[in-house]
């Protein structure tokens, strides 16, 4: 269970309050208007933004003071998820250890995970030689290999076409959630949430609401979500 306890985030004249619990092993979508603070919440959970007050805890352990690298968190950003000057295998290998030298068993792990996301044999290429969808798969392969229980997705597939995006979301569900990882994803597209999310939390008006089961929420949206959806 990921718990944000009286969490208050502030920068410039923006502020966001979160006092919510996210279920472990589930996919939770964060939905809401742009600028509401969805990415900010993820940044705080990942450790990039120290909260003004409150605590973040994972599996009963307070992680508020931990550095981003020490947290049980893998994160995919909107862009720049791969280092362009490193090969795909090197990029993915960073999930195993922060450095470029891998043992032969680690290298076969990299090959295996690349195969599992449909990138077999592409390890020696640089990101620029891959399509957008393949780059997303490579980034996902790194997250798979990193073996950290909490995965934060800050709209990493937003630049893909609808068909590819759907494929990637399905891959997230099959490869991550179905194997016990806890996934939190930012989205502004209700269809993304309906496609894979178990629960949805609305971020609007400076507050993060409690996550509610996806189908029920969309059938009977609260006022903030209704306003966002234009209903």
């Amino acid at each position, binding site marked *: 269970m990921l718990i944000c306890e009286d969490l208050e*985030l502030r*920068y410039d004249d923006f502020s966001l309050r979160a006092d919510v619990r996210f279920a472990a092993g589930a996919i939770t979508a964060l939905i809401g208007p742009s600028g509401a603070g969805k*990415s*900010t919440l993820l*940044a*705080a959970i*990942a450790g*990039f*933004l*120290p909260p003004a007050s409150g605590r973040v805890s994972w599996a009963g352990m307070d992680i508020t003071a931990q*550095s*981003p*690298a020490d947290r049980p*968190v*893998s*994160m995919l*950003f909107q862009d*720049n*998820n791969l*280092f*362009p*000057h*490193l090969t795909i295998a090197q990029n993915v290998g*960073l*999930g195993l*250890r*922060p*450095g*470029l030298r891998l043992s032969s068993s680690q290298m076969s792990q990299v090959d295996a995970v690349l195969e599992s996301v449909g990138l077999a044999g592409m390890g020696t290429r*640089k*990101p*620029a030689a891959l399509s957008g969808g393949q780059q997303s798969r490579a980034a996902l392969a*790194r997250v798979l290999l*990193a073996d950290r229980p909490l995965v934060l997705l800050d709209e990493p597939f937003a630049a893909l076409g609808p068909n590819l995006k759907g494929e990637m979301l399905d891959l997230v569900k099959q490869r991550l959630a179905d194997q016990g990882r806890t996934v939190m994803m930012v989205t502004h597209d209700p269809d993304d949430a309906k496609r894979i999310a178990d629960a949805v939390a609305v971020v609007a008006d400076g507050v993060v609401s409690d996550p509610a089961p996806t189908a029920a929420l969309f059938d009977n949206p609260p006022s903030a979500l209704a306003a966002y959806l234009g209903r």
Partner: protein
Amino acid sequence: MAQRAITISPRWPGVLAGALVLVLTLGTLAAVALRAELTTGLGTADWAAIRFTVVQAFLSALISVVLAIPVARALARRRFWGRQAFITLLGAPFLLPVIVAVVGLIAVFGRNGILNSTMIWAGIEPISIYGFHGVILAHVFFNLPLAVRFILQGWLAIPSERFRLAASLNAPIGRVLEIPMLRAVVPSTFLVIFLICLTSFAVALTLGRGPKSTTVELAIYQALRFDFDLGRAAMLACIQFGLCAVAAVIAWRVTGVDAMGAGFDRTVTRWDKRRPFWDYLAIALAALFLLIPLAMVVLRGLPGLLIMPSSVWLAAVRSVLVAIGSATLCCTMAIALGLLGGRAVAVVGVLPLAASGLVVGTGAFLIVYPFVSPSDVALVITMLVNATLALPFVLRAIGPAIVAVHDDFGRLAVSVGLTRWRWLWVVVLPRIRRPLGFGAGLSAALSMGDLGVIALFAGKAEETLPLAMHRLMGAYRMDAAAGAAVLLLGVSLLIFWICDHWGRGDVDL
């Protein structure tokens, strides 16, 4: 979104580099000042040197900027074969060893030069290149191209849509677009050149004649070399520091353009292109002014290569070693400071612009004097001084690149656990390879051509190539000096090309 500085890189190398720069600039000044007996006031010769320094720097900057405007305007609105090559050539004088350019200028404007030969043939009284106008001529030669590049950048920064709008409204382009741009760009260009000319040493050493054309830097050299008067040298050094500091602060405040900026390949479509004659005339005159002296260096020097004493080759080897050391140190410091970032680093990074190379060298010498003899450390001190003086330019090239890497990949690196040294090796260095190569080439070439502090201490056994060349000129062995000039020019450009080329290879951006 939530962008915040995350500490990724180790901090102590930057702190160490900053401390080294402070010691080498302010510390050396203090070392000189402490040794000085500040009893004597400023003599008339000192006042003359100050006046000359400011006046020549002012005139050099003024003439460079005024002449640069028509050339930049012509380059901005004309497209012709060789335009890109010409713009690249405009970057060359920055790398050109001063003493090489002086040889070229003497070949054109000197007593037996092309110009005077023609004038004598036409029955006109010949002119002398030595003294006040010679110093200004050399400064304009160096800084006119720089001014053209600055101002051209201003012109190319005007969006083409504005020209289209102005053309469709039939508005006067000069008044609505060009004059406002020049008002923004010219003052900063002027100040940068003014600052460069304030610190002039090698030009005044070779072309200045007598007390009437002595710069403060040259006066420091004379006080140290001939009178060994530390007090006067320290006082002049403080004055020099003050002059440069004021100019540097103003220049850095006014300057928005990047001296080494790339990408001049855009030609804006314009609708005011009548009268091409004047544009091409401006370009042709500028090209002749730059190319003829360089061509003369090569023409006169090639035969000279064969008659150079063998000591010149040894000096060349020494110079290359000093250049490699200086470039390595300079780039290391620039990377360390760039990783540290922040306002203090920005100040430390420009501090060397206000420092006198001679004072830095003298101070360093005074600090180590109790332990070693001056000629033993002449090359090491030269290396230190060169690295320090090149730092502002290299930091300007590398610093923004490091910031960009940090902004683009800092969070990714932290989230996969790449911090400290791994962040440097795995991410930063590969991604700043291009500006790093450029910076290394720049600092190596600047060090290669430096004729400054080395002139104070070096005996025959520590001669660098520019010094060997200067001594050949002093002995009126002009043919051998011309040969050394070709060698120096070739090696400087080659070493720059190697570094810059390395930086451009195998990058995936």
